[in-house]
């Protein structure tokens, strides 16, 4: 992954209601969900909608990012902007949804970085190019690697469907 900037740093236990508020849940299509990403964080939401955040930019979070609801919109809305989410760790359903829809996510328990810092992912480490320090990445669950390698659950499930006798 190329070097890019931290566009937002959020805290621990950021819920799917914060990432994608429940009142927008009638909008379901991945092509339509990005407009409501962090809808209650007006500054970030407007920057994203205005195209001011380049794809590949980092959103960094504390522990248990994406806790709460199973709504897949929370993963698809971030994927729509090509954001890379780095968290100390992720909540289970959000982690699986993100792998399924192909959102780039990184588990980095010790990361120290601030908004505006330049980060780069290389050799199993998150490098903070602003401070010159590096932090180890925890691999995503091995059980799900086949889905990641396939580019998401839709192509993976499609392959299994085709392998099954008609």
């Amino acid at each position, binding site marked *: 992954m190329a070097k890019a900037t931290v566009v937002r740093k959020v805290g621990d236990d950021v819920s799917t209601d914060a990432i994608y508020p*429940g009142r927008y849940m009638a909008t379901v299509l991945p092509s339509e969900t990005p407009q409501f990403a962090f809808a209650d964080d007006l500054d970030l939401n407007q920057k994203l909608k205005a195209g001011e955040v380049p794809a590949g930019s980092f959103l960094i979070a504390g522990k248990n990012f994406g806790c709460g609801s199973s709504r897949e919109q929370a993963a698809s809305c971030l994927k729509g902007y090509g954001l890379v989410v780095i968290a100390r760790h992720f909540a289970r359903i959000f982690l699986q949804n993100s792998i399924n*829809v192909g959102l780039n996510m990184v588990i980095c328990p010790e990361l120290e970085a601030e908004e505006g810092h330049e980060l780069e992912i290389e050799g199993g480490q998150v490098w903070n190019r602003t401070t010159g320090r590096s932090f180890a990445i925890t691999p995503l669950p091995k*059980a799900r690697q086949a889905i990641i390698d396939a580019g998401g659950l839709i192509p993976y499930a499609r392959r299994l469907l085709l392998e099954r006798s008609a």
Partner: protein
Amino acid sequence: MDRKQETIMGMTYVQKLIARACGRSEVAVGEVVEPPVGLAMSHENAALVINQFLEIYKETGREPKVWDPDRIAIIFDHRVPAESSKTATNQKKVRDFVAQQGIRKFHDIRGDVGGICHQILPENGYVRPGAMVLGTDSHTTTHGALGAFAFGIGATEMAAVWTLGKLLNVEVPGTIKVVVNGPVPAGVYPKDIILHLVGKLTAEGANFKVIEFRGDAIRTMPTSGRLVLCNMTVEAGATAGVVPPDEETVRYLREEAGVDGPLDLFGPDEDAIYERVVEIDASRLAPQIACPHTVDNVKPIEEVTGKKVHQIVVGSCTNGRLDDLEVAARILKGKRVADGTRMVVFPASWRIYSEALRLGYLQDLVQAGAVVCNPGCGPCLGVHQGALGDGETALATTNRNFKGRMGNPSSEVYLCSSAVAAASALSGVISDPRGVL
């Protein structure tokens, strides 16, 4: 491999359940399995599942056909009746799909068989002990109360289940044993027990684990209370909550859910290995309140009594059952909801609504000034009725109090039992129900 040898001594309830589902004598914690699915549930978000399901079939030359229409349940509850043309169009799309695929466990917007998915599944006997139950809703953990391994998944994951009939690449989870002993004091309810547990474990304390409930306070608790406990295990990050089935489970299934035929009843091994054991002495518990803006910010009621409340909510998949309406009606009967406070009631299903109507509970609530709405998710997630104004405070029997949860990021939500909610409706401030019961 080492890990496998370690765990084969005894199995937890869910370990054993997964082994049986996979047709094996044993599975180890951490092992990757692909168990067949017993029941796959969705609500309005079936609209997205359908979209992803059709994506999987795209350019395959195969006709999109769900693996087993009798193992799929779809219940409209999040926005009923539809609050917008967009929702109504999604619901129409789902209705067409249900007819086309021959899905019969479909609960449309109806005053006889409708309601919230996490009440509809148990009361119709769709959930059995030993079953794998998946739902595109995080509170699918509720169904562990009947001895199922039940948990929430996303829409694309569900689309793969509809296609293949199994869950792909899952790790057998470890289990935390939570032993709850009583006797439970008057004025303290299953909601207080689970709020206390979430506070103790924290919002991430059970991440990727199953919570298995044991102890004499669980054995003597009716299924309605076990549903409350399992419903909120996800608030501690748990994959699932489960109560190993017993006589009460059988009673509920036979008498309240109309289930005939054999049941697959089994328990955890006595030498099962748990990752952690947590003991709760319920006899010492006071009513508990989860304070804004996280469910694990739990305090005994003494610390928050007197807090002004603008809206009281009784209902939801957590606490919208007959015993919740009974205690609220008992507290409010012949009295009056305080001025400056409004109270809205959302029964969990129309069966419960009808029963509460027959028993006079709804009359008591309405005469006290409560607004009784139709069964559904209502204000719980801020999408349909009961929104909060800027700076307002709600006290609710629902399961989440995240910032903005009830539709307004500048409002606050406190969570409590139905008894606390009703007692507080009388005074307009958070109040201890032990004074009015």
